């Protein structure tokens, strides 16, 4: 396989060539299959675990097809946990952290792109490099001191560590890719730089904002470590809640898998729907949460 389509033609008979081509295609098909199957199999196994009763889940040899499938595990998830509350927390945290990040990050991306301010950008890059855990001791003590623990605010604020760099990065590359002529024309016409940004650059950057929103949302949604330390009874987010399902004294593979699937389903669906934007955003720079 090469990076470029097309093969060098060889001096062979058409039949052999066709055969070789067929073999090459089959091999290629198998390679693609091998690439996607780990992803598919893990999710399918998750689904299978979540639809079986506990005896089948720990059976040997393993039971693959739920027979009969049961929704009991899902019922238990909703009955035993404040699952809906945690889901709501996750929604609030991820949306707020993403929204705030857009509010400060989009103008910052624009400013940095215009100024070509390398140092400012590098500072934000440090956030990308720092392990998430290392923010936690000071932030925790700070929020304790401010008496903010027990609310969602500390979690939203800590998630800014993830979302702001993502938004800024994506927006820098988008604004740099935009032709500057239109804004310059607006400036010549007497617009302020804020107006040029607001009415000229911003509408043009809308695809970039979409990408930034999706990525910031997903990585905020998936984050575990901040909420693990900062969240209290009513402020847990879903990843923490699902990890907490690992009960002492009782194993429950079924409900655990059901919960795991429910947690990750929203982002998987979002990925399926918005895969084009995600691919565009990620190829433009390796953004990922802290």
């Amino acid at each position, binding site marked *: *396989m*090469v*990076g*470029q*389509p097309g093969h*060098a033609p060889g001096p062979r008979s058409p039949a052999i060539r066709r055969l070789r081509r067929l073999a090459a295609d089959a091999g290629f098909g198998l390679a*693609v299959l091998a*690439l*996607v199957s780990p992803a598919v199999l*893990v999710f399918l196994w998750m689904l299978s675990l979540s639809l079986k009763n506990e005896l089948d889940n*720990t059976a*040997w040899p*393993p039971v693959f097809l739920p027979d009969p499938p049961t929704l009991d595990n899902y019922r238990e998830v909703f009955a035993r946990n404040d699952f809906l509350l945690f889901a709501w927390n996750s929604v609030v945290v991820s949306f707020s952290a993403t929204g705030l990040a857009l509010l*400060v990050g989009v*103008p*910052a991306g624009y*400013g940095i792109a*215009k*100024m*070509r301010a*390398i140092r400012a*950008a590098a500072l934000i890059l*440090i956030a990308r*490099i*720092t*392990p998430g*855990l*290392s923010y*936690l*001791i*000071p932030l925790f003590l*700070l929020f304790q001191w401010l008496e903010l623990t027990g609310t969602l605010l500390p979690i939203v604020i*800590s998630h800014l*560590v993830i979302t*702001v760099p993502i938004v800024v990065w994506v927006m*820098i590359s988008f604004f740099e890719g935009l032709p500057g002529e239109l804004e310059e024309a607006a400036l010549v016409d007497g617009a302020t730089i804020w107006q040029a*940004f607001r009415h000229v650059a911003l509408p043009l950057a809308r695809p970039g904002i979409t990408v930034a929103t999706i990525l910031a949302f997903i990585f905020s*949604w*998936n984050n*575990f*470590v901040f909420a693990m330390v900062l969240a209290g009874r009513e402020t847990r987010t879903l*990843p923490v809640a*699902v*990890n907490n399902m690992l009960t002492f004294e009782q194993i429950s593979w079924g409900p655990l*898998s059901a*919960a*795991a699937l429910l*947690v*990750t389903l929203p*982002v*998987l669906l979002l*990925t399926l729907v918005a*895969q084009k934007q995600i*691919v565009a955003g*990620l*190829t*433009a*720079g*390796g953004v990922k949460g*802290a």
Partner: protein
Amino acid sequence: MPRDIAILDGPAEAALPRGRRNYARRYAWFVVPAAVVVVAVILFPWLFTLYVSAFDWHLGSERRWVGLENYVRLFTDARFGWAVLRTLLYTVLAVVAPMVLGLAAALCFHRRFPLRGLARTVFILPMMATPVAVALVWTMMFHPQLGVLNWLLTQVGLPPSMWVYSAETVIPTLVMVEVWHWTPLVMLLILGGLASLPTDPYEAAKIDGASPWQAFRHITLPLLAPFIVVALIIRTIDALKAFDTIYVITQGGPGQASETINIFLYLQAFAFYNVGYASAVVVVFFAIIMVLAALLLWTRQRVKVT
């Protein structure tokens, strides 16, 4: 070129004409809100950590100023030393494997074939999946007697593996989970590179009668080099920082066989409550990451020159 790394390349600032620089300053206001946030949630923790690292402080006891003692202790702490080595081993494996696989996958997905869009989407699903949720499912699959993975191994005639239940296999197994999660990111970064490649060299190679392998080796690979290095840098940083999966699956075990710096840090801070010592770990950990990142950036400069 991916923006976040290009930014570190050097003084593009100087490239602006002097008149434009004053003009550019007016854009500083756009950056102020973000700067405030960054200072508050990123810089403040940093300074605080640096300060606390000079104390002997167990939560619940009095703080005691000890200067650099925590650092001295850290450098003589064999357990920390092993954690560093383990982190490096984990990083090497968790960088090389996704790089190789990601490159292969990018080459596959660069070709046109039926259902390519769907296959690519499915392929990137793991990197979007919630790591904690998936890690819990992996844990069940790794059970040495009842896990589905060992059943699959025995079905194809292989001996069962101990996965995360043995000191010898725990790191490769955790790397496997990491590969599952993050190969798609490498693939996407390199795919972006492939899309930007010029077509002319290939035309020329075709005329010269080069084989596909030769074309790959002498045209594709060199042209892709900057993208590969970017992926390498990102992967290295992420592998060094790996936490969620290890914490959920092994918590650093068996014994200390998968105790990386991050897990060591977590234990010191949130299980043993040695806040001062843990802060010193944060500082040293960050230094390690910076050194490695700088090393890779330097490599990148060399790649660009050649």
